[in-house]
């Protein structure tokens, strides 16, 4: 039996850059998208492809597998977008990218915390060592590379550090003295 499903789509098209779509025309695209069946639309322009785009949800009645429904979502979304562009007098040079998310995926993605970043002090706190010790541990081959080297010092993505800390074979105390080789 068919059930109603909601999918969120994001479309980017090829174009001549952010300024090639007039602000008034882009604003006018939003109500037109709603009129032709888009749910919760926002209109956009620019990005990597440089043309007009939009993000909105599509209602699909489906009983089959999710992959079958996704194919229908893709064609429906492009039909909606092209119909709206035509009504709003906006042109593009072909679809460059189309992303489809199921509603549960979108919810989970929007609730996901963004990446956190850490400097030497935060890394020291995270690892439970001194700032000086961080400088020593940095020399290890398996220590993550910083994402940036600022004048104030290196900056790491916390996610990469957590992986290192979880696998770090920490040995408490001073390293044992090596015995002098027999002369």
């Amino acid at each position, binding site marked *: 039996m068919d059930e109603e499903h909601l999918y969120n789509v994001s479309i980017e098209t090829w174009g001549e850059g952010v300024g090639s779509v007039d602000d008034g025309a882009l604003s006018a695209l939003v109500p037109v998208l709603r009129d032709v069946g888009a749910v919760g639309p926002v209109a*956009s322009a620019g990005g990597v492809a440089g043309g007009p785009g939009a993000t909105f949800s599509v209602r699909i009645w489906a009983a089959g597998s999710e992959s079958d429904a996704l194919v229908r979502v893709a064609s429906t979304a492009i039909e909606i977008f092209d119909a709206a562009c035509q009504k709003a007098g906006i042109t593009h040079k072909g679809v460059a990218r189309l992303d489809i998310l199921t509603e549960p995926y979108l919810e989970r993605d929007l609730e996901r915390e*963004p990446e956190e970043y850490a400097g030497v002090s935060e890394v020291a706190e995270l690892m439970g060592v001194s700032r000086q010790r961080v400088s020593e541990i940095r020399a290890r081959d398996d220590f993550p590379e910083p994402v940036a080297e600022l004048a104030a010092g290196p900056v790491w993505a916390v996610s990469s550090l957590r992986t290192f800390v979880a696998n770090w074979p920490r040995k408490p105390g001073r390293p044992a003295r090596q015995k002098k080789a027999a002369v």
Partner: protein
Amino acid sequence: MTKDKGKARMDNKDYPQVRKAARKQGWRVEATTEGEMLYAPDGQSKIAWHTAHASSDPHALDSLVRQMRKSGFRWPPTRRR
């Protein structure tokens, strides 16, 4: 965040928070006759947001935040240590 059936879920009433965070992250927000136009800090993209339509559509803010995140918007905002 507006609570929806015990789950943290954005509602269009949360838009002022999104706009405030956007401005703090260098986005330019300008009023239009129907809503607002949001310009990404790198000047490479812009997004049209309609307040009037969004008020009757619970999915509009989700679309806006998803689109803004593609242009580098950090949401939810990171808490200060």
